[in-house]
């Protein structure tokens, strides 16, 4: 649904995005990257708010920068907080519905506000809203026209935990319905719940794309770290050290061993065998660094 081909963008001497190519299909894709990595520039280009200096971007086969029709099928939640402060939530979302030419803008706006759990009859101006409520109004205006592509730039900012959960479920639902949902966020715990597909941008370049667990498995130069809880840690550590693929063993405390291995699959089979050999009971075997946070840190080079 989205295709970026060799896209670069620079502002004066500053290269914001450099030679980025990727494809995004239906479902939820998380766009990750440290601050200043170029995430927002990528999202802005996906929506046509700025054009690439080089390369091409196609959304549903069209150029979002120049093709008005494709804008009917894109919904954007921008990062900035600014909204039309003098309007109430219904007026703001209804304006979006009118501008999209929906046959019954008021009904569409009410429905969209209901989806984000806001009261359409709330007469207060948006200027009086909390950050979380504003964020939900922004989501409502982005979905009011039932878009096929939804782009959300830091949509969880300002939301309380319950609202975050609701939004995550909402984005998952959109993805399950076959929409293309691209979400940028720095809240990795939440992003992990969107799904496992990620686009990682670091220093303006595409660091990785795909399922983050698969990406982790491809990182041969990074040993996998696994925590094992057992009643006989010393014996287990000694037995594991003799096995191939085990790069290091560390006794963390009286019942915990931390193992670095280059072969996760082999290790999973080996640890049970060794435990039996040394008469140790395994209480827990947990990978420590195949979560999104670890993968992200590896990819962007953060400690």
């Amino acid at each position, binding site marked *: 649904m989205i295709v970026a081909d060799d896209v670069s963008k620079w502002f004066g001497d500053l290269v914001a995005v450099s030679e980025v190519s990727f494809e995004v299909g239906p479902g939820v894709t998380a766009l990750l990257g440290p601050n200043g990595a170029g995430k927002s520039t990528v999202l*802005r280009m996906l*929506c*046509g*708010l*700025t*054009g690439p200096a080089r390369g091409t971007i196609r959304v549903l086969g069209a150029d979002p920068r120049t093709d*008005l*029709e494709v*804008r*009917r*099928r*894109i919904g*954007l939640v*921008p990062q*900035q907080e*600014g*909204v*039309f402060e*003098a*309007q109430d939530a219904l007026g703001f979302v209804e*304006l*979006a519905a*009118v*501008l*999209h*030419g929906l046959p019954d803008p008021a009904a569409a706006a009410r*429905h*969209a506000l209901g*989806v984000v759990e806001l009261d359409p009859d709330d007469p207060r101006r948006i200027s009086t809203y909390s950050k979380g409520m504003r964020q939900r109004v922004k989501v409502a*205006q982005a*979905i009011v026209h*039932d*878009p*096929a592509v939804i782009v959300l730039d830091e949509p969880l900012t300002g939301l309380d935990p319950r609202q975050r959960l609701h939004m995550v479920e909402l984005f998952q*639902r*959109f993805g399950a*319905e*076959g*929409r293309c949902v691209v979400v940028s966020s720095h809240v990795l715990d939440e992003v992990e719940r969107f799904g496992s597909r990620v686009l990682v941008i670091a220093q303006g370049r595409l660091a990785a794309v795909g399922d983050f667990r698969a990406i982790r498995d491809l990182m041969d130069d990074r040993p996998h770290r696994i925590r094992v809880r057992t009643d006989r840690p010393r014996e287990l550590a000694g037995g594991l050290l003799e096995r191939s693929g085990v790069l290091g063993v560390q006794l963390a405390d009286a019942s915990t061993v931390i193992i670095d291995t280059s072969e996760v699959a082999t290790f999973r089979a080996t640890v049970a065998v060794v435990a039996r050999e040394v008469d140790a009971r395994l209480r827990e075997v947990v990978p420590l660094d195949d979560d999104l946070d670890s993968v992200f840190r590896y990819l962007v080079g953060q400690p």
Partner: protein
Amino acid sequence: MSAPTLPSPARRPSSPPGAFVAIYKLLLRNLATRGRIAGIGALGVLTMIAAAVVGNAHLIDPLRSGTRFVDGGLTIFVPVGALVFASAALGDLVDDSTLVYLWLRPLPARVPVLAAFAAAVTICLPLIGVPMVISAVLVDGSPELIAGTAESVGVAVVAYCAVFTMWGIRIRRALPWGLAYILLWEGFVASAGQTASKVALRAYTRSLLSEATGVGLRLATFTAATGLIVPMVVGVLCLVYATRVLRRTDIA
């Protein structure tokens, strides 16, 4: 939300009906802040007070004095009032990054530009035009001066609103730069001579006033037709350019 059931783009017009009116209403509300209304309203009141003072003086030629008074208004009050509102019509949206909510809709760029222009004119015509016409009545009250004032101020408001609508979207910190343009270009450089005056709107609007009252004004050398057509053409060109800028600008 139901599953995406996207209509064929061809079934919908490129500019949804009601889009212009919706944006116009939005921008009208955005523009009509208490501060702006109070500021330009105060200038209008000051203009009328000054007109009353001049009108109560024992004037040898009230029509001539009235024409010169209105010409003064065309030099400062009208362009400054138009600048304050028209430059903010889209400029405010650029500044607070809300332009994205209009830009990312299936609308031709001319729709928000024309709505912004219309909103600025809607506010400026009564807020600037009424005090100017009342001032003309207070100074002289002759039909020639009142008609000339209404005509020249009306043309000036429309033309300056078009210029400053473009200005607001093209230039950051449009207000100080606009004031500099009004004072330095329209007020000073363009007064330097016949050739320079041709590139200032003021020369055309004061020609309209001069033609209507029959009172000669410096550098007011254009016919009424030229005085009407050139500002309108300039206005249209500015709106076309603003549309082009909006279409090509990077949206924050």
